[in-house]
């Protein structure tokens, strides 16, 4: 590793602008910078292609621009994901799932740019997102079903003597949802980026034979891009499934 630099150094947060608000340190950091870039990019990506898009009044209006095709692809992807997991009632929650998916996806993807910062590799960020989903889904369950929501922990068709054992297990599994959701994303990002950095250290250490880890890094970068997409997808589809659970219980 060059200059004895830790492969974990890339995850360090560096404040860019120190801000102190009511005694809280809310400095604008490199993490916040990449959140800004991600947010701006998503808004531009999904707004600009439709600014010039005319209403379809004739067949010649049917040809979308390339940017529009890309935006429609993202839109339809989440749309069908919700329709497949939740059904027609899922349309209401489309903006939430869409925002979550795009925010995580582009956060992950921008993290693949060298010298950038991956804010999804921080457990506090992923935990906040997962807790947000968890609280939203739980509140949704109570709003839809009231106290009947607790019947979610009782698996139907089970012998009564099994319930004392299984209800606590169900409750624990329910409560561990935000943890598994956040740790999955965080650990994937952490592991991938650390691995890339470790092998990048080998490249300079091995001299001529450094070409071997270099080839490996190139392949691994491809894999990491796949994982960046996959983890955003997993987060989104699990959110959909949790919403479905809250709406339909079993």
């Amino acid at each position: 590793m060059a200059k004895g630099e830790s492969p974990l150094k890339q995850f360090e947060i560096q404040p860019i602008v120190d801000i102190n608000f009511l005694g809280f340190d809310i400095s604008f950091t490199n993490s916040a910078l990449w959140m800004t870039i991600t947010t701006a990019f998503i808004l531009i990506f999904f707004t600009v292609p439709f600014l010039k898009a005319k209403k379809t009044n004739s067949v010649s209006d049917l040809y979308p621009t390339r940017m529009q095709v890309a935006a429609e692809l993202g839109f339809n992807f989440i749309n069908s994901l919700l329709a497949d997991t939740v059904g027609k009632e899922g349309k209401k929650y489309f903006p939430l799932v869409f925002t979550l998916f795009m925010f995580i996806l582009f956060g992950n993807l921008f993290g693949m740019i060298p010298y950038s910062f991956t804010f999804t590799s921080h457990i506090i960020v992923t935990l906040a997102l997962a807790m947000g989903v968890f609280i939203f889904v739980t509140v949704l369950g109570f709003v839809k079903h009231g106290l009947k929501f607790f019947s979610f922990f009782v698996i139907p068709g089970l012998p009564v003597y099994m319930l004392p054992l299984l209800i606590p297990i169900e409750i624990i599994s329910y409560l561990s949802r935000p943890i598994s959701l956040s740790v999955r994303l965080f650990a994937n990002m952490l592991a991938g980026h650390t691995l890339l950095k470790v092998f990048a250290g080998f490249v300079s250490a091995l001299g001529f034979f450094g070409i071997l880890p270099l080839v490996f890094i190139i392949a691994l970068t491809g894999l990491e891009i796949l994982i960046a997409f996959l983890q955003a997808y997993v987060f989104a589809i699990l959110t959909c499934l949790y919403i479905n659970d809250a709406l339909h219980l079993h």
Partner: protein
Amino acid sequence: MPQLEQVEFFVSQLFWLGVFFVILFTVLTYTTLPKIRAFLNQRDDFVKSHISKQDELIKKAESIIENYEVKLNDAKSQASQIINDAKDKAMQESESLIKSTEEKIQNEIKMTEERVAKEKDQAISDLNIQLKDSATSFISKVSKIEKENINL
């Protein structure tokens, strides 16, 4: 691990995450996504209406083809009828013509035969009369000669 060591930046990270997530969520929910959905729905409607229009046109075309085929079949059967009629007529006409011609020929043959028979009879009777005349004149001549001989 900086993720767990830099606790002093937790509030900052949560704050900015909240800010940007809320901004993104709000803008997407209230402007971007409804716009995209409206656009896509309008396009889907356009495509669907075009498809239904096309279906109507196809049905129309099919009915026109059916109509045409019915008319074509009618015309064909009419044509064959006319041809058959014409054939029958022609056959009848030619047959009657042949018949009348044969009758005429037969008549002529008969008339000719009758004429020949008449002329034959005439000739025979004429010959008889001539024979008779010559016979009487011969007899009278002979008897005259005998008288003369007797008188001698």
